[in-house]
């Protein structure tokens, strides 16, 4: 089974690494990283700006690109399933065949200018690692979401609309909703509920994982402040790291189950 998945990944990577979107993404990340380093020269400022790009743009790019990729390859997926190939094998091959090139374009794009200016980042390597981990895991999670959305919707436009909504929800609306909820329930001890809600948002978790390394509470947003206040720095780092890792499996497993039963 793993050998069959590897065969599909090989050809999907061959296709995707030549895709102008993946090449464009690599150029975008490397240009952003290079310019930020050139203009600022302060590694903390560079990393904060890169964090904003990573937690806002990365999920958007992955969820939209993944959705379009799945729909555009529908006839190819059907062709592949007429071969003696299991659905879970094909699905895993398509998924990893996409996230590996996306991850490479992110890591090399951000990483290359950093390596060239490595002296600047010697004191902030732990923040840099947290940032890269956040970016990579968000590629995994939001590509998983995109495959799930495309697997449950036949209509491409509707699927794309839902994808953008999911990104908007996790990236922007969620923090505001929690704040609103906490405000109207401020007379009750709801700290644990708030923590639960934070764990349910991979974008927030990613932001917390990186920001917690900075020790700047003002940048945390409301959810981040609650999080650090409750867990403290080291436990907070561990829990956000672990939760993000668990998050990777959720959309992937959901979409795999849906795809395996789907009528094509």
């Amino acid at each position: 089974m793993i050998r069959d998945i590897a065969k599909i990944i090989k050809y999907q990577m061959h296709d995707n690494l030549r895709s102008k979107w993946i090449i464009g993404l690599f150029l975008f990340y490397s240009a952003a990283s290079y310019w930020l380093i050139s203009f600022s020269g302060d590694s903390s400022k560079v990393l904060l700006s890169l964090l904003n790009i990573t937690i806002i743009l990365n999920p958007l790019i992955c969820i939209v690109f993944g959705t379009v990729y799945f729909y555009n390859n529908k006839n190819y997926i059907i062709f592949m399933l007429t071969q003696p190939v299991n659905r879970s094998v094909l699905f895993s091959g398509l998924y990893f065949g996409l996230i590996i090139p996306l991850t490479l374009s992110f890591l090399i794009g951000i990483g290359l200018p950093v390596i060239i200016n490595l002296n600047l980042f010697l004191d902030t390597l732990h923040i840099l690692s947290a940032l890269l981990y956040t970016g990579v895991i968000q590629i995994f999670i939001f590509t998983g979401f995109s495959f799930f959305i495309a697997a449950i919707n036949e209509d491409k436009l509707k699927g794309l609309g839902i994808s953008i909504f999911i990104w908007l929800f996790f990236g922007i609306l969620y923090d505001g909703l929690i704040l609103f909820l906490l405000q109207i329930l401020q007379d009750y001890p709801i700290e644990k509920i708030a923590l639960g809600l934070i764990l349910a948002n991979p974008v927030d978790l990613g932001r917390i994982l990186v920001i917690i390394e900075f020790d700047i509470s003002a940048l945390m947003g409301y959810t981040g402040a609650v999080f650090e206040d409750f867990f403290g720095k080291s436990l907070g780092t561990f829990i956000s790291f672990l939760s993000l890792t668990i998050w990777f499996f959720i959309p992937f497993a959901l979409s795999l189950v849906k795809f395996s039963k789907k009528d094509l």
Partner: protein
Amino acid sequence: MITISQLHKSYDLLNVLKGIDLKIPEGKITYIVGPNGSGKTTLIKILLGLVKNYSGRIYVNGNEIDGESSYRSQIGYMPQHASFPENLTVKHVFELVKELRNRYEDLDEELIAKFYLSKEMNKRVKTLSGGTLQKVSAALAFLFKPSILILDEPTAGLDPVSSSILKDKIKTENNAGKTILFTSHIVSELEDLAENIIFLLDGNIYFNGSLDNLIVHTGEHNLERSIASVMLRRL
């Protein structure tokens, strides 16, 4: 031989196949015909394992389809609209399918030669014309010498020369004992190739027999009128 018994399939409230019992004979060319929405695409998709949520039983060469994919190594399929990853070359596409099937020898490369696909091998899929894609798809369907060939509108998009090459290939393979199942809207093709005809109408089998029987049955003087007669439910 493909045997289907009590095959039901519905999408929400729409019953697409209403209890089909069918034997597709071995070594013959069988043509599935029916108006749009009659259920022929669904039937083919179920045979290929693309549609999973149905009730009924299907046996391919004696083995029941039960969610496993291995039976598809006996089937060659040519879709109506072929599509492959656009940045792969034609050579990559052939290699991919060979790797998936784990077959590198004892291949039937006649169509690769007759369609002159060797000169297309290093071209990327996105640069190919629709007709060339169809030729690649046809060559892939026959490549592994499957005992069953399922061809969905095989000559649509092919020029007359390529179309006749493909029809000759279908006849040759049929003479060699292959079971061939295909759909087409081109009646002349049907007269050329088909031995058996299965007429689907509203999810039921309206007619299943030889071409001559159909003409006799409908009382019309040619095949085109016979098909029209069935579609208009004069049978």
